[in-house]
């Protein structure tokens, strides 16, 4: 650690690698089954140690310092997970809104799935289900009747659901070339 404080990156990374093993054991013992939380906490602690490495007193044992930080991160983790359980439902929106990665990923997944549908049908689903048009408005914009739009959207969603379920095994259960089917 003293070499690390002086700026020796190699000594530092081997120290962190060794400490991360100890920390993993430490958190695994305390968290039991929650394994992903455990790795998150290890990384969280490594970052905290890095940012606050100036608080290490060279006259004190390193492990005392590391475990004091680990303990603090663990308490913080408990506090946050308790918080998560007790947030009233009305306020929960704020928690979800704070995470921008998840909506972005969902958006990407939806776009990906829609691309697998015939373009015209995908466009109708986008208009009615994502942009919020009514079936009649969407039909007007592409020159289809309200009923035709509803049928197309319904079939499109059905084939999307089938795709999602079958993705891993059967691949694409193609359900193409129905757009010409303008059932009133």
């Amino acid at each position: 650690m003293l070499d690390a404080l002086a700026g020796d990156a190699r000594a530092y990374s081997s120290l962190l690698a060794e400490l991360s093993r100890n920390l993993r054991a430490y958190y695994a013992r305390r968290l039991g089954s929650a394994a992903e939380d455990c790795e998150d906490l290890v990384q969280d602690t490594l970052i905290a140690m890095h940012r606050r490495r100036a608080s290490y007193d060279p006259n004190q044992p390193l492990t005392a310092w590391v475990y004091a930080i680990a303990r603090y991160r663990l308490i913080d983790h408990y506090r946050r997970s308790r918080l998560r359980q007790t947030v009233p439902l009305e306020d929960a929106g704020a928690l979800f809104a704070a995470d921008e990665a998840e909506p972005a990923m969902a958006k990407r997944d939806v776009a990906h799935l829609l691309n697998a549908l015939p373009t015209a049908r995908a466009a109708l689903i986008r208009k009615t289900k994502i942009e919020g048009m009514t079936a009649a408005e969407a039909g007007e914009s592409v020159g289809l009747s309200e009923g035709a739009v509803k049928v197309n959207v319904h079939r499109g969603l059905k084939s999307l659901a089938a795709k999602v379920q079958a993705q891993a095994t059967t691949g694409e259960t193609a359900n193409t070339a129905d757009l010409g089917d303008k059932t009133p």
Partner: protein
Amino acid sequence: MNTEDLIDDLAGRLDPIPPLWMERRLAGLTLIGLLLSVALMLAWLGVRPDIAAASLTGMFWMKFAYTLGLGAAGAWAVLALGRPGGNGTRAFSMATAVVAVLAGIALVRYISAPAEARHHLMMGHSSMICPQYIATISLPVLGATLWALRGMAPTRPALAGAAAGLMAGGVGAFVYAFFCNENAAPFVAIWYTVGVAISGLVGAVLGRLTLRW
């Protein structure tokens, strides 16, 4: 990101830490806070007019010794509690000892004074404003000490905040002593101590709110 990549990333961003980094940080920020406190005091209260004559009395210096003693104990506590797992017990014991010494002197003065003078020894003429003034003048230093702690790693935020408040209170009371023209040990032992304690309480509350990491 997996843990190995994180370690490489952290090792790649390793700037050397100079020795006594925490001490320097605390000293530097406290100096800024002290200058602001002095400016506040000069603009608001000014220096006592009889300062030249007063500097010949023992009590004038006693006030400095007392307030700086508390400030030093506070600084020690801040540095101890700024480290993970620190508890500052010895530093707070030192603060208690400083208070006890002055309380002892004050008690002797009080008992040895004639009965009709005792009330004035304790209450002076500014007992009702002295603690507020000290707590107010301490605020810039408190901001500085809390800011210094934010760069450290306190694992007991409220206690670390109280240490910051103790240190700021001691320094603030030191500044205030240039204005205050009370000369009785019992007065200082009570009302200065109350002022520093208010600063410590404010620090504990703010520490709880601002020192989480």
